[in-house]
């Protein structure tokens, strides 16, 4: 009997937090479907979702959020792999460089936003340098990287923070694979490039996919960078949601419907990830 209860006893605090998590999520999701915690709810309905999709700014916002997140994750993954591979090849995968790589992981997003506004905005250092060298005639000639419609500044800021994260995330795995199997392939006559692309990279792919998913879902739901560096139109989904959330109580279900869409999108990306991983496993068999 004791043996049967003991694991549950150990899990008790975890279950408490699981319950708190689910209540928060379900309360929000329920209200977005009309199940209001207040008196006088309207009952189960899809009308809030209908309403946000009738708004002109919803679809551009979804596209903006998905696009900036996917590009941030994609570029971070590519650059991160390059950094990790270079670190391993030049045997600089320990010591000072590793500590430098870890730094951006510790820097909060609000500070990252400060760096990028200082550097790449139309008033930033880069624009001043371009003017100084005579490449642009006025402030307005400098491309709009911050507060721009395409989210270039936001993507660059994520890249600064997340590419080192990916490098750090795959480094020890990649170093292990490359030293054991990659070098064996090189001894058997493969070029370094071929050994990397046909041995090391495929074996690291599942971890790289997880890294992509972590960055994608994080930036999809993140508030700080798009709020501080994003355009007024289109806005990222979490910003739209918070805007509605701050208005009066009758707008709550609208805000929570935006959250419902966000959740749907990140669960969908997780399913695609599972599917890809399973496909990979089947191929290995």
């Amino acid at each position, binding site marked *: 009997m004791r043996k049967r209860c003991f694991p*549950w006893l*150990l899990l008790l605090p975890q279950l408490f937090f699981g319950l708190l998590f689910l209540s928060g999520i379900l309360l929000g999701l329920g209200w977005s479907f009309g199940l209001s915690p207040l008196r006088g709810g309207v009952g189960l309905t899809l009308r809030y979702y209908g309403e946000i999709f009738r708004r002109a700014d919803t679809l551009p916002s979804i596209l903006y959020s998905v696009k900036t997140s996917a590009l941030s994750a994609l570029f971070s993954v590519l650059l991160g792999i390059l950094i990790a591979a270079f670190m391993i090849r030049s045997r600089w995968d320990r010591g000072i460089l590793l500590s430098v*790589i870890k730094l951006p992981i510790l820097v909060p997003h609000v500070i990252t936003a400060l760096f990028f506004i200082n550097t790449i905005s139309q008033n930033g250092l880069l624009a001043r340098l371009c003017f100084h060298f005579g490449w642009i005639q006025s402030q307005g000639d400098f491309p709009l990287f911050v507060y721009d419609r395409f989210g270039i500044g936001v993507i660059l800021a994520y890249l600064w923070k997340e590419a080192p994260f990916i490098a750090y995330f795959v480094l*020890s795995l990649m170093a292990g694979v490359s030293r054991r199997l990659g070098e064996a392939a090189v001894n058997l006559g493969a070029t370094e490039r071929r050994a990397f692309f046909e041995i090391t990279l495929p074996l690291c792919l599942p971890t790289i996919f997880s890294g992509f998913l972590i960055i994608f879902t994080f930036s999809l739901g993140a508030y700080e960078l798009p709020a501080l560096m994003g355009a007024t139109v289109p806005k990222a989904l979490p910003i739209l949601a918070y805007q509605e959330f701050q208005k009066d109580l009758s707008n709550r279900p609208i*805000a929570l419907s935006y959250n419902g869409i966000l959740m749907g999108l*990140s669960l969908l990306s997780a399913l695609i990830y599972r599917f890809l991983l399973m496909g990979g496993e089947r191929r290995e068999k």
Partner: protein
Amino acid sequence: MRKAFLILLSLLILLPLFSLFFWVFTERWPWPNILPKDFSERALKSTIARAGELGNVFFTSILLSLLASFFSVLIAVLSGRALAFYDFPGKRLISSLMLLPFLVPSTVFSMGAQILFLKTALYSSIPGVLLCHILYSLPYANILLNEGTRALGEGLEEQARVLGAGPVRAFFSVSLPNLFPLLLSAFTMAYVISISQYFMTLLIGGGRVKTFSVVMVPYLQSGERNFAALYALIFLLVTTLVFFIFEGIARACTGGRRAELFSDY
């Protein structure tokens, strides 16, 4: 070529950090000057004049994040044991639900939790914010410790039991020291996650729980970049100091063995 790339990369990481020193003293910087026109110690002086307030902000931030990471690690150790050493119905379900906060954005949870907490004492209180921080730091600790506890196995503890140690002593003097590097990684990761939370702290704390990011963002939005830079600089210095202390404690606890924060997992 490769090394040049890596050096350039390090510069791109380090230069923005060092540029903060410069920004703190920048008062007026009209276009198109390459260097600021006026320097002043206004941000520094005014912040020193309100040092008590600033001290409170950092005290709250650090205490909150230390508690959040302590509880995350504690809970993850317990759950890791339950999952590694016992079989029970629903085990697979629980271990996948544990990772759910990775998939549900913290903004989504924060708005739901604010509605949940609104009528309770948890709203705009430190304990309420703490609960939510733990929730989002916990999965990182879970991943590390589920894996680590399974890898360590029960064997060593059983040997200690055979030699006459009680279950509590076997855990504290055999398993815990072996898990220590992992505990440290989990603690660091949880600390970083917690201290970087802005939206969640703002929403659950109702603006009354003042952590570093909640105080810094208004300066950034109002364009007072010298103040924002000063806060960022102090934050980074304090974080470095905290990590330095972590590492010192780690060295002392492992008896001088090399213990690296964020060690490989």
